[in-house]
């Protein structure tokens, strides 16, 4: 079986070429007559669609191989060589990355199409698509990279694009600050990633630094180093995937355009951390403690974000916190060594969360960029397509059987229960109920009841087909994606788990039917309680509540931002100011400045000799020549 192919590199190359082309077109025409938007739209969609076709080709190529040998690789060129270490710009497609490829390119293509409608009339239309293509290219490098170093290239690339797109509406200071916040918080995480990579290299890097070599040599790693590596890599994941304590950037990131929130801050980039942990499953499987820490951080993030989500008033922030919460579930999944369950939740979440965001974007567009849910209401009649598709997304998010979210979330909770992590399971079930509550709170307030702002309501209308068609496609995905990994209890064959089995190191615990029924039952009961609570409070129309006590505390997000500001940002600024005002002028600048003073003094001494008359220079010359002649005649004799 031939494993070395030449077309893997094309997948990230298509969107990257699109990014360069659109970027150049935009740069050269933005000050003159604008090019038609349709041209940019078409150019932007070609790359992602071609990548999707290639991803399908790879998927079927892998499917045709025996299960144990499913991988394709390509070495484009040697990136750099230091001593015996050769880092290649190499790509690897195995079941894990091919699954990621499929949904990243599919959802990426759909969101590119949707954006043509959403961004209509924006003055930086070309710039937006250039960034979006660049993002997709970077994401595909992240997914396809065959070593942690190549992954890091994509990792940084998506971080950059995230920053650029969050502050896309750059005339608002808040948006720019949100972009900065995302970038800086991500840098903290990236430092962890780089350190983790260094530890890994220090430990077993000398035998080759691609995943295959690392996997083969992982048993040489000392337990302490392995634990440190796992935790440092996880710090990187908490930055990119918005987990405690670095989750604070994601809600603010909603300042960007809604398609960006859907693509980057819900479906793809934020799941990079989960992908990374699953990619390093051979390492995490080696250190049980690291997995437990990952799982607990994940589930506590899920709980915290769900609490915040229950009190938000901005439709996008509700969805942002639900994203943080669902990412927490995914980490709980990969933490309890149920890697395929975690990745499966990444997969289904990408569909329903992209769907919800795009639906929210459709609502926001119809209401002329109003995002406060307490100014909406009764939109069900005005926007039936958006309503129905979003309802499907909401049911999937809150885990209603048989929508996709139910199967993936249940798989994670079941894995936690079956592997004996009762605490994680209990919190997970609680969060499942809260998820149903806040999701349907949003749905009821936005779409049901009476319109709260009659003027906006009268002007609202259904979005054009270029926006609703992607919604419908995603809704189909949100509805049926769960059946791809139907557990045995429902007569399924767990296709996704079997597909991923060669890529991830996991062992399925064997439990009785009873445990599985308990897990499913608890999830369904939690969902019903959540939706019942939401209906009784918001189902028949409700007014904007005044928060007090705990609710007020949660509405202000437990003042975590303020705490970080007081504990980290302000002291950091003070240290910076101290260095700037005392150490820099006195310690680092002093020698430099004294050297320049010395030369000035020397110069003023020699200045006397420079009289400016030709005759005097002639004298100097003659003196010099005479001295030289004398010296030469002395030495030659």
């Amino acid at each position, binding site marked *: 079986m031939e494993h070395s192919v030449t077309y893997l590199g094309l997948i990230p190359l298509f969107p990257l070429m699109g990014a360069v082309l659109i970027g150049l077109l935009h740069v050269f025409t933005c000050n003159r007559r604008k090019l038609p938007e349709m041209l940019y739209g078409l150019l932007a969609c070609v790359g992602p669609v071609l990548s999707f076709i290639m991803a399908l080709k790879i998927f079927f190529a892998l499917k045709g191989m025996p299960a144990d040998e499913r991988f394709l690789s390509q070495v484009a060129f040697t990136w750099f060589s230091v001593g015996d270490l050769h880092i290649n710009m190499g790509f690897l497609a195995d079941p894990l990355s091919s699954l990621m490829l499929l949904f990243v390119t599919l959802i990426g293509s759909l969101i590119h199409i949707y954006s043509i409608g959403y961004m209509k009339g924006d003055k930086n239309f070309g710039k937006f698509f250039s960034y979006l293509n660049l993002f997709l290219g970077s994401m595909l490098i992240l997914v396809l990279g065959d070593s942690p170093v190549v992954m890091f290239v994509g990792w940084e690339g998506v971080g950059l694009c995230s920053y650029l797109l969050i502050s896309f509406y750059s005339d608002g200071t808040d948006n720019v600050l949100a972009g900065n916040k995302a970038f800086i918080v991500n840098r903290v995480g990236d430092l962890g990633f780089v350190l983790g990579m260094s530890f890994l290299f220090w430990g077993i890097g000398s035998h080759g630094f691609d995943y295959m070599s690392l996997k083969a040599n992982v048993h040489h790693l000392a337990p302490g180093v392995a634990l440190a590596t796992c935790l440092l890599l996880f710090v990187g994941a908490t930055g990119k995937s918005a987990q405690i304590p670095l989750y604070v950037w994601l809600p603010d990131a909603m300042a960007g355009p809604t398609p960006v929130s859907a693509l980057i801050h819900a479906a793809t980039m934020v799941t990079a951390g989960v992908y990374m942990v699953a990619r390093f499953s051979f390492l995490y499987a080696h250190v049980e403690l690291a997995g437990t820490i990952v799982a607990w951080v994940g589930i506590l993030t899920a709980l915290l974000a769900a609490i915040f989500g229950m009190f938000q008033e901005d439709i996008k922030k509700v969805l942002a916190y639900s994203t943080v919460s669902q990412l927490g579930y995914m980490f709980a999944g990969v933490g309890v060594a149920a890697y395929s369950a975690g990745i499966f939740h990444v997969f289904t979440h990408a569909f329903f969360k992209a769907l919800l965001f795009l639906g929210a974007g459709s609502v926001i567009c119809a209401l002329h960029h109003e995002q406060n849910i307490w100014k909406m209401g009764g939109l069900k009649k005005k926007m039936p397509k958006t309503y129905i598709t979003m309802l499907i997304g909401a049911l999937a998010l809150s885990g209603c059987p048989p929508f996709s979210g139910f199967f993936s979330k249940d798989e994670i909770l079941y894995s936690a229960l079956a592997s004996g992590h009762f605490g994680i399971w209990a919190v997970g079930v609680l969060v499942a109920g809260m998820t149903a509550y806040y999701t349907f709170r949003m749905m009821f307030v936005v779409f049901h009841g009476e319109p709260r702002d009659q003027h906006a309501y009268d002007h609202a209308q259904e979005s054009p087909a270029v926006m609703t068609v992607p919604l419908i496609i995603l809704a189909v995905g949100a509805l049926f994606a769960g059946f791809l990994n139907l557990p045995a209890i429902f007569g399924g064959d767990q296709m996704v788990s079997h597909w991923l089995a060669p890529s991830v190191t996991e062992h399925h615990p064997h439990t009785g039917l009873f445990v599985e029924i308990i897990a499913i039952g608890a999830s369904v009961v939690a969902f019903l309680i959540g939706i019942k609570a939401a209906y009784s409070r918001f189902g028949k129309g409700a007014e904007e509540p005044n928060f007090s006590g705990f609710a007020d505390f949660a509405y202000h997000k437990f003042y975590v931002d303020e705490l970080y500001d007081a504990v980290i940002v302000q002291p950091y600024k003070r240290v910076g100011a101290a260095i700037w005002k005392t150490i820099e002028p006195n310690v680092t600048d002093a020698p430099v400045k004294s050297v320049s003073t010395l030369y000035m003094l020397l110069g003023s001494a020699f200045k006397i000799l420079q*009289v400016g*008359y030709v*005759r005097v220079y002639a004298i100097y010359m003659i003196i010099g020549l005479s001295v030289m002649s004398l010296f030469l005649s002395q030495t030659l004799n």
Partner: protein
Amino acid sequence: MIHSYLYLSIILFCLGVVGVISRRNVFTVFMSIELMLNSANLAFIAFSRVHESMDGHVLAMMVMAVAAAEAALALAVVILLHKHKSKLDTNVFSLLKG
């Protein structure tokens, strides 16, 4: 015999040096430089005669050619200087004063 030529050459050279250093008129300075060049030529030819070789002659011819070219260039520079300041006094031109 050679000594006489060398003494003449040295005297001419020193005259040139003194001229360059002491005179302020650009033309006089320039002529003094020519004098120095020709004193060197004289020494070359004298030595050439002593050693019975043509090398010294060749060099003397070279120096003359260079001096001629230099004269053309120098006169052009002098004209420019005169256009700027309407004077031929070297002390007027002291832009390099520190």
